[in-house]
């Protein structure tokens, strides 16, 4: 019974992990950039829900109606006016810009909210549902539904809409996408906006599950990395599956060993199957460089030699 309870807990926990990794997966898979501020976006999402609950007295889940568009806009504008410009000079300047944004957001949140631990609470936070002898917290079920719905909606958006197709085209080959009439810079900004919007949902999930501080972004970022490496870049379904795997490892390993086992698992993947994690990434980044969003003359020169 203990194992069964652990598996159920792991699956429920996996939903939260999946949504923590979703934005990072999009950022790496489409924009080809490690957004070091993603953890802070998640914390900002949690604070936004907390403020809306305090000011308007609304349920944390309802706060998403405001926090999702707010984070989308923030992510879009930061990408459009800061990161895209830095990306023209290469990957490193863009990475430094996201690091700078991370530091600014962290310090701003510390200034505004203080260093106190916070937690999002709701009336149903302590309700437990009994199912076949297993005690399942209602909150965990709701968080899994939120995570699953977000991932499903994003999947449908990417598959069925014209903007979604443009995002997939840019993810596949930014150079060819640009020569098909797609504004790659704007598509990057939309993708970054969506990644930040998922951070609003992730902030809600993390905020209801754990206590957080202005400095919690680093921890969330690390979890997001693990999920992305297990699930694959830009792979929405893979992110969900990776979240489940990570949740199960955490639940079965317990509080003491869960994290340790997870990171050993991460190192094993990177050692045994680095191709899926990084070679595909570098290949896609090469195509992004060709398009001219990132300048990488040496790579462009190799391509030139190959084609002539």
């Amino acid at each position: 019974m203990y194992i069964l309870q652990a598996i159920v807990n792991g699956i429920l926990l996996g939903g939260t992990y999946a949504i923590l990794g979703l934005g990072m997966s999009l950022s790496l898979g489409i924009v080809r950039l490690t957004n070091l501020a993603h953890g802070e976006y998640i914390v900002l999402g949690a604070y936004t829900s907390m403020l809306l609950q305090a000011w308007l007295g609304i349920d944390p889940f309802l706060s998403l109606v405001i926090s999702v568009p707010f984070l989308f806009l923030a992510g879009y504008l930061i990408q459009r006016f800061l990161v895209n410009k830095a990306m023209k000079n290469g990957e490193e300047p863009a990475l430094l810009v996201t690091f700078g944004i991370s530091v600014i957001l962290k310090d701003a949140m510390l200034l505004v909210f203080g260093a106190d631990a916070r937690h999002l609470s709701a009336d149903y936070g302590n309700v437990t549902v009994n199912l076949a002898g297993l005690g399942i917290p209602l909150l965990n079920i709701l968080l899994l539904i939120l995570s699953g719905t977000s991932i499903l909606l994003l999947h449908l958006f990417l598959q069925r809409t014209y903007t979604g197709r443009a995002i997939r085209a840019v993810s596949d080959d930014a150079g060819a996408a640009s020569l098909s009439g797609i504004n790659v810079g704007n598509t990057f900004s939309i993708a970054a906006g969506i990644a930040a919007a998922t951070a609003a949902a992730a902030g809600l999930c993390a905020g209801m599950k754990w206590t957080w501080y202005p400095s919690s972004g680093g921890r969330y970022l690390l979890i997001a990395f693990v999920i992305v490496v297990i699930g694959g870049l830009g792979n929405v379904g893979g992110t969900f599956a990776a979240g489940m795997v990570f949740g199960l490892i955490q639940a079965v390993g317990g509080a003491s060993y869960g994290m340790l086992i997870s990171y050993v698992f991460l190192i094993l993947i990177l050692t045994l199957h680095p191709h899926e994690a990084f070679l595909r990434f570098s290949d896609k980044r090469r195509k992004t460089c060709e398009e001219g969003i990132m300048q990488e003359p040496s790579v462009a020169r190799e391509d030139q030699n190959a084609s002539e």
Partner: protein
Amino acid sequence: MRSGEIISFDDIKAGYGRSRILKGLSFSVREGEVFGVIGPNGCGKSTMLNVLTGTLCPSSGRLFYREKEISGLPSYKRCRLGIGRTWQIPRPFTGMTVYDNVLTGAVHGAGESVKQSREKAEKVLKETGLADKSRIPSGELTLLDRKRLELARAMASGPEVLLLDEVAAGLTEAETKEIMALVGGLRERKYTVIWIEHNIETMLKATDRLMCMADGRNVICGDPGEVMGSEIVEELYLGKD
């Protein structure tokens, strides 16, 4: 830029890093003609296409499209203006179906309504012989069909000028005939074509004018027969006895 010309290179210099490939390239392409480009390996043919599509910014010189200078225009705007391109090694969006590839070109390149884009995508798929493969993931296509798809996606974006980079490269003789028949039909559809090809014999039958490049410059341009018969082409490109 003279009347009737659609593309004009005016003393374009460009390269990658410190390596200069185009060293003052000048030529013009007339509206509706099939303009062939030949030259030895490394002479800058593909670089010329990269400059024309905006993938590579020239360090100096001016580039005109219908009397409008486009040297600083990004690639997607050039596509929307009417410049479409295929690659020597096809670059379909492998995560999408054939239909979605073409539809993406129609929606974003041509900028038409959803209904018009769908109709255009279906029309172009029929014209390129891909209608029965429209639901197949593009990554599963053969090389010939990938080349067809490249052409279809470019055509769906509503171009006036089509840039063909070695469409016959890597194809068997029978496949080459098929793709050449398709390319031959482009003239009837009133496209202006700039065509790089190593298979000169095949290309000569379909071109109105031919330019030979060497060392990043236009060394001779004119009637294909005259160009091929010129001493400089024999020396530079075909080798002299």
